[in-house]
């Protein structure tokens, strides 16, 4: 019997993830050379798409894995954007070096915020995060050094020629996307990610098995804030202007939520697919004015009610195809064969 059990393999990679990993290389190379092919305007449009992917990936980390629905993530977009402009323009630190500083500062700010926000749960947590974002906006508007109500321009990048600048920002944004997705992937494969899966299934049981529920949630809250701030720096570098009313707009939260729901909540692929769909709809329905948000809202409601795994769930056949395998699968076909079962079964624990 022991020889039979030694034949059982525990695997993480699946055929689809291997194919996906191989396919990813040419896709990334293709994306990396695009600045040599595309117009500046198109590159800027793609940076916006990339910022949506980062935002949605972070919101999914928070809500899809951490179970925390926030409608106040614009707070970190705003601080990240203002932070970058302030550190680069006023303190004179190199723009791309200023990005990690801005992101770390947001991480530090989000720790005390988490203590306030964690006093609320569920829907009240959601509105609470929104209030905190409003407070931050109202405070930022009071600071003359940040331009008050009219905002500030981002001047440090104007040392570069426009073509060069836009290409640099594009590559920076591409790196940000890779970083955000990779970090999320690694977190979900780690002990922390395993803890989250346990919390999602049963918080009390997870806690009794030694998962530090509150601490895990706080780590994810801070990481999501930092990733969201990274998106904020992308937006600032792309638009070259930061205005309080638009950078702290709750509409960003609406976008993140719709993207994640449409793409598929609780998967790494979902936010990416959702962002591409959302972006295509936005370009396509732009002529319709506000109708595109109405259509998106109705779509999100219908998907929540009837297709909770989202579009990616539909594409992947409810999780059979995985580009980013987070769980383990047990290959028991050899064992099953020797136990004279006709068919191998796999057991997913994700």
């Amino acid at each position, binding site marked *: 019997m022991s020889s039979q059990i030694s034949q059982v393999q525990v695997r993480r990679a699946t055929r689809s993830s291997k194919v996906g990993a191989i396919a990813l290389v040419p896709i990334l190379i293709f994306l990396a050379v695009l600045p040599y092919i595309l117009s500046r305007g198109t590159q800027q449009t793609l940076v916006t798409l990339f910022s949506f992917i980062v935002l949605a990936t972070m919101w999914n980390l928070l*809500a899809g894995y951490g*179970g925390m*629905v926030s*409608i106040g993530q614009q707070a970190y977009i705003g601080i990240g954007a203002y932070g970058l402009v302030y550190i680069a323009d006023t303190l004179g630190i190199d723009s791309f070096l200023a990005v990690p500083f801005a992101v770390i500062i947001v991480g530090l700010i989000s720790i005390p915020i988490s203590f*306030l926000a964690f*006093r*609320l749960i*569920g*829907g*009240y947590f*959601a*509105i*609470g995060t*929104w*209030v*905190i974002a*409003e*407070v931050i906006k*109202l*405070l930022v508007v009071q600071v003359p050094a940040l331009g008050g109500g009219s905002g500030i321009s981002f001047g440090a990048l104007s040392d570069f020629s426009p073509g060069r600048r836009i290409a640099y920002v594009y590559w920076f944004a591409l790196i940000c996307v890779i970083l955000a997705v990779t970090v999320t992937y690694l977190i979900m494969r780690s002990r922390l990610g395993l803890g989250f899966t346990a919390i999602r299934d049963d918080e009390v049981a997870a806690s009794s098995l030694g998962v530090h529920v509150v601490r895990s949630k706080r780590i994810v809250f801070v990481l999501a804030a930092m990733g969201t701030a990274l998106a904020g720096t992308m937006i600032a570098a792309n638009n070259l202007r930061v205005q309080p009313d638009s950078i702290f707009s*709750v509409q960003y939260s*609406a976008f993140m*939520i*719709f993207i994640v*729901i449409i793409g598929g*909540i609780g998967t790494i692929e979902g936010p990416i697919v959702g962002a591409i769909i959302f972006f295509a709809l936005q370009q396509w329905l732009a002529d319709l*004015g*506000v*109708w595109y*948000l*109405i259509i*998106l*809202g*109705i779509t*999100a*409601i219908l998907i*929540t*009610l009837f297709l*909770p795994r989202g579009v990616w769930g539909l594409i992947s056949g409810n999780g059979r195809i995985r580009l980013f395998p987070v769980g383990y699968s047990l290959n028991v076909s050899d064992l099953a064969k020797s136990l004279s079962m006709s068919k191998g079964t796999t057991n997913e624990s994700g």
Partner: protein
Amino acid sequence: MNWLNAVVQGLLLGGLYALLAAGLSLVFGVMRIVNLAHGVLAVVAAYIGMVFVQNFDVSPFLAILVVVPLMALLGFAVQWGLFTPALKRGGLSPLLVAFGLAVVLTQLLQEIFTADTRSIPSGSLASSSFEVTPELFIGVLPMITFVVGVVVIIALQLFLTFSPLGRAMRAASDDSETVSLMGIDNRMVYALATAIAFGTVGLAGIFLGMRTQFSPTFGDAILIFAFQAVIIGGLGSLWGTLLGGLVLGVAQTVGSQINPSYGVLAGHLVFLAVLAIKPSGLIPKAVDR
């Protein structure tokens, strides 16, 4: 304006906030749903009231007779068709559905009425007031709003405590499965609870529309103020919601007294202070359900 005046005006404003928050409190109390569309629903009611008053040239108080049943009907339909199915899905679904509804309604208002600010014409009522002292005037409309707010909270509390339907709602809140074993149709109880909640939102929306200017995105602020009233007062207690509304109203008017741009910020800071110091609210429920 002096300080006494600021406090009195704040209390009157707080009555409106309590009225706005009552429905949010009720829906959460019975179904554990945080209705993120609550704020925009008040604005929807205000727009319906405005259209009615303008087109038929009648008193805004007559509009209440139309708007409240209409909103109650909408509440029944939303609960029956959206929230209850979302509850069955579990997890984050009710919250996400409510959020989607909020965005859709806001954008629809934008499409129909544009982003311009409007108000419900209330004739001489808007400007009439009576003098308490030479320093202190009380507006008739704010006074009526305050009284309506307090009466609605008391009526809801009495309804939940003594009526059979109110009892069923409290029971469904405690243990919905056992309640359904007792022969009560949860789905109907939920739909009626939301109908009542939307009815109070309709009422609040009319008074809101008479007192201030509103626009399609005004619902965001309303949701935040109603939420703050609920949390400051303490979850699950309607008396708490009333007190929370009054505290928020006073914080905002006193803040504005210090500096006109600090009003909303002062309300936020009082809310955050309560959250930090006494997260269960000023009047916490004795036993957590």
